[in-house]
């Protein structure tokens, strides 16, 4: 089976005053089309660094080694310019905090359509139409009117929907969601998860879902990667990891989670 996205032996190193520190160590995983990989781990375990490394967005000074391939194309070592064409287009990202991921100075429609035009070109009017459709797809009511609203006129959950609309407007083949529901309250969390799962099944986008909440992973991911201090601790299908965790650390994480049913409450 040809996987969409293959990460092989990825290592991220930061030079510090006390010598180089590896924040991601020899990480390997694959994401298939229409597949969701959940990455779980405590705070500081290197989840976000993995995501940023994939997009070439690591802070200055960081060094990466290994291989990251999307559809057979190597991404590590690509020029900044080539990477810009990938970001938001073939691979897009949704961040943790929808409050601050949108620029307060522009209408959401402008932010979506600008991103679309950057990658796909086309007229301003066509891009605005894309923005309206994107908002409709993520369940924003009355999208024709709402495109012209500013981020502060949306609720937290709606802003995250807007972010998702933006991430999906160029039909990426991979979506990286870095703790997209952490800043939201529980009922809204469930709605966003449902939305992501639904959009994924209709568009066939591969997804990497980063969280420190195993309960969230159980409802959305087919495969799970558990990380601890940069090390991949456990990697396997969701059933394997949940029913028969091989590693002590995974068992500890599982015990810390109150068991909930696999179904997301509607």
């Amino acid at each position: 089976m040809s996987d969409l996205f293959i990460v092989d032996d990825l290592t991220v190193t930061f030079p510090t005053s006390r010598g180089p520190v590896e924040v991601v160590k020899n990480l390997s995983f694959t994401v298939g089309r229409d597949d969701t990989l959940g990455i779980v781990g405590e705070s500081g375990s290197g989840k976000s660094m993995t995501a940023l490394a994939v997009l070439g967005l690591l802070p200055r000074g960081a060094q990466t080694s290994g291989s990251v391939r999307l559809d057979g194309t190597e991404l590590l070592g690509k020029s900044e310019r080539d990477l810009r064409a990938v970001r938001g287009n073939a691979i897009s990202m949704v961040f943790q905090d929808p409050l601050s991921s949108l620029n307060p100075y522009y209408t959401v429609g402008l932010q979506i359509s600008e991103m679309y035009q950057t990658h796909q070109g086309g007229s301003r009017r066509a891009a605005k139409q894309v923005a309206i459709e994107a908002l409709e797809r993520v369940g924003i009511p009355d999208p024709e009117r709402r495109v012209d609203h500013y981020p502060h006129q949306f609720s937290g959950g709606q802003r995250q929907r807007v972010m998702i609309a933006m991430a999906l407007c160029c039909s990426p083949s991979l979506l990286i969601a870095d703790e997209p529901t952490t800043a939201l309250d529980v009922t809204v969390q469930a709605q966003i998860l449902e939305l992501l799962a639904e959009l994924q099944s209709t568009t066939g986008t591969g997804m990497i879902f980063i969280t420190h909440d195993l309960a969230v992973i159980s409802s959305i991911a087919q495969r799970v990667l558990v990380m601890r201090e940069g090390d991949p601790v456990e990697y396997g299908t969701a059933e394997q990891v949940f029913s028969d965790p091989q590693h002590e650390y995974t068992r500890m994480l599982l015990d810390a989670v109150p068991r909930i049913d696999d179904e997301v409450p509607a």
Partner: protein
Amino acid sequence: MTTSPTLVEVEEAVPSGPLAPPTSGKRVVTTITRDKGALACLVFLAIVVLMAVAAPLITKLSGWGPYQFDSAAINSDLGGVPHGSLGGISGSHWFGVEPQNGRDLFARIVYGARVSITISLSATLLTGILGVVLGMLAGFYRGWVDQVISRLMDFLMAFPALIFMIAILSSLPSGNRPVLLVVVISVFGWPYLARVIRGQTMTLANREFVEAARASGAKDTQVVFREILPNLRGSIVVMTTLAIPGFIGTEAGLSFLGVGVSPPTASWGQMIASSVSWYSVDPMFFAIPGAFLFLTVLSLTVLGDKIRTLIDQGEAA
């Protein structure tokens, strides 16, 4: 600002948190016009600006130009003291005349406003450009760019600027004094703005929407001009408004010291300087330009403070 957010009914709105919308220009205007003190300042400034803009027209109406001598208005037997009380205030010389040569004070005040406004606004513009560009460069690129710019700022801020300005202005040919003044004032003025812009750019560059913009494929220039710059607008407006009175004061000060605009061009600072020796016989010669300078600086400071409060509230709301 052209696209102020309109208030529409908001479905399940949450407190806006760090994502405060920009304070709209409209709101600033309505709040200021409701405040009596601020409104008075605004009206006074409007008059000064009108004087500056329409100077030739106004002096045509008042009948005397700024360079016209009126020997009939002064008493040459008494060494040139103006005829009449209050420095020769009369129907034809509304603010009286200059002792010794009888030039019309009203006309010179009007033309002096021109000098003050032009120099301070040009200096503000140049300072603004230098401060914003260099501050953003330092804050955005960090590293050696920041090192170079920051050291330069430290150097300029620690420098005894006034002494240097006097030295350089008196040693250079007085050919184009206003331009020189603007350049010299701006060279020493930009670090104060740049320092603030640098700090805010650093904070903004770490905000998630900047990272989000990068993650969606934005170039550095797009990040700087589209994401960061608009969010600095509040600080730029506040810092530059509060800088204008300072520049007016500096121009007056330098002209007072004889290194500002060169005579016969009228300037408030210069008028105050020449009034010093006449202070006891003709106090109005000092009082009138002094009052204009004082009120202009005061009004600008009060308004600047008001705008600052409004924008701070807007950002904290």
